[in-house]
């Protein structure tokens, strides 16, 4: 899934659109231009979405070739399943941690890197490069770093303190490790957007704060943070989506959803569970019902974004 990066400015040109006369005329032409996009979306997004809805009301098994209408009982089964509830709960915890840590660190680093210092460009580039790394590559690097026997982290910890934690076998450590890796991988994205927003801040306001005797810390908390709230709001949603979906590659390579504690693997998040049920356990109907529940979640998140997003403050020219 990609996310609209322009959301923070959406409201600006809306007025012109309704008043302006069309530049070009033609009945067929606009449809010709739109057709490829609409066709691909209809066939590969809307059709599968409708099918997912219908599949969620069946109990079916691809391997056995069985298919039986069960109404909403897949949903009832999921919502009453302790394992699924555990997965949902730990997903929410993971998302919350990734968002809070990612936004906090991203803003702090962007603020530091945006200061007029020598070599600022190099710092900025070195801070944002993880944006280009894939979750799979991030998972691979961290898997080796935290390998209990030959990983650098345990070799260091072992020689300094004589401890060699089993990072991927211990539930708490594994959860923390996946979270940290996700934050690390997402940091570049947050820094990019915060840097952009910081560059766009009205200089006069910051100068006024400085003249009024605000020190760096005060102008950061009292002036910069409030002015950045539209960007923070936008990043809040993109980060939630990132944590929900892009965590898959990371989890698959680092932990395969484990280690198990309670009813399920502690790093089995909703998307990973969906994949397992669909392509490992072949519980197609259940997997479809999980997809529908997540679609509802994404729908609520997106609606919130549009609802509150359009009311965001506008500054600048």
């Amino acid at each position, binding site marked *: *899934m990609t996310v609209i990066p322009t959301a923070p400015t959406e409201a600006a040109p809306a007025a012109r659109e309704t008043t302006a006369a069309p530049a070009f005329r033609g009945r067929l032409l*606009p449809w010709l231009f739109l057709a490829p996009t609409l066709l691909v979306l209809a066939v590969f997004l809307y059709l599968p*979405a409708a099918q997912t809805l219908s599949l969620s009301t069946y109990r079916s098994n691809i391997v056995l070739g069985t298919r039986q209408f069960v109404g909403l009982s897949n949903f009832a089964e999921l919502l009453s399943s302790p394992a699924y509830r555990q997965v949902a709960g730990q997903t929410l915890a993971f998302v919350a941690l990734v968002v809070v840590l990612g936004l906090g660190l991203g803003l702090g680093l962007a603020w530091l890197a945006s200061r007029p210092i020598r070599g600022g460009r190099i710092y900025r580039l070195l801070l944002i490069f993880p944006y280009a790394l894939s979750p799979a590559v991030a998972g691979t690097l961290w898997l*080796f770093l935290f390998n209990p026997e*030959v990983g650098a982290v345990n070799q260091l910890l072992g020689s300094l303190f004589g401890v060699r934690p089993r990072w991927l076998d211990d539930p708490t450590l594994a959860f923390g490790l996946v979270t940290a890796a996700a934050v690390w991988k997402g940091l570049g994205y947050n820094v990019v957007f915060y840097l952009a927003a910081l560059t766009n801040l009205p200089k006069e306001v910051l100068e006024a704060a400085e003249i009024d005797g605000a020190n760096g810390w005060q102008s950061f908390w009292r002036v910069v943070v409030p002015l950045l709230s539209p960007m923070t709001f936008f990043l809040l949603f993109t980060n939630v989506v990132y944590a929900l979906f892009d965590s898959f590659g990371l989890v698959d390579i680092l932990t395969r959803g484990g280690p198990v504690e309670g009813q399920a693997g502690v790093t089995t998040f909703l998307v990973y569970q969906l994949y397992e049920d*669909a392509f490992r356990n072949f519980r197609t109907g259940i997997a479809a019902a999980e997809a529908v529940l997540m679609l509802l979640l994404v729908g609520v998140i997106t609606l919130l974004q549009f609802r509150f997003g359009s009311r965001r403050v506008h500054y600048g020219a």
Partner: protein
Amino acid sequence: MALDRLEVRRAAPSVSGRRRLSHALTHAALIVAVFLVAVPLLFALVKATQPSDQVITPNLLPGGAFFSNLGRVWTEANLGRYMLNSLIVTVAVVVGKTILSVLAALAFVYFRFPLRSLSFALVLFTLMLPTELLIVALFDLVSTRLGWANSYLAIIVPFLASATGTFLFRQHFMNIPTSLADAARIDGCGPLLFLRHVLLPLSLNTIGALAVIQFVYVWDQYLWPLVIMQSDERQVVQVGLRKLIDVGGQTDWGAVMAGAIVTLLPPLLVFTVLQEQFSKGFALGQDK
């Protein structure tokens, strides 16, 4: 008057002293942060160059075995094939997405037609339908009904339309003065000529920004190729990485690290080269 100036002169050194200290602290904080962010990558870089007997030791001195490590995964573990597949798929999707979303944005901004708002809503609404959630039905459609499993089509065609791209170009076109389009029309220019000679040259930053986002997005895709590509011959490099680790028995970490480094180079290269456009295209200066 004279006193004022004196005070200013006296105050100046202490202000600049404080500024120097704060600059030094900023440098220190940034160096620590940059180092921490880079550690996993630096470690991978070093280990990718070490011969097998050093890779699993704490030794952190670069060796000269990068190309022999890479050679092992490139041919024996099929990395070369995976890279080529990823490159084909990524370029096809990025080019296709750009063309399709430019055309769609052209229709939305420069034409008035029935159901225009509804069509735009339908495009925008797809943002709520992440592919990850549709994999069950999409798998059925693409592999069973279309018979595209194990072909490039399966990982190219479903991703050709882009709500993000359409939205981005629409925003950008709306910021271009309408008088340009009017002038083009009066000169007898059709929409495609107008696109070719006026809009595209004015859209280079937007195209660059979108290219970066899409390149990184497509190159980094993992779940869908993992599910739909059973044949190793068409698999992409992200899933290939997983296979490098899973060789069974002892993982050849030097080779895996060399593979990881090579895997991350293309998006990093695109990102670094187009970073200016990336920033200008949609983030910087958009309110101006």
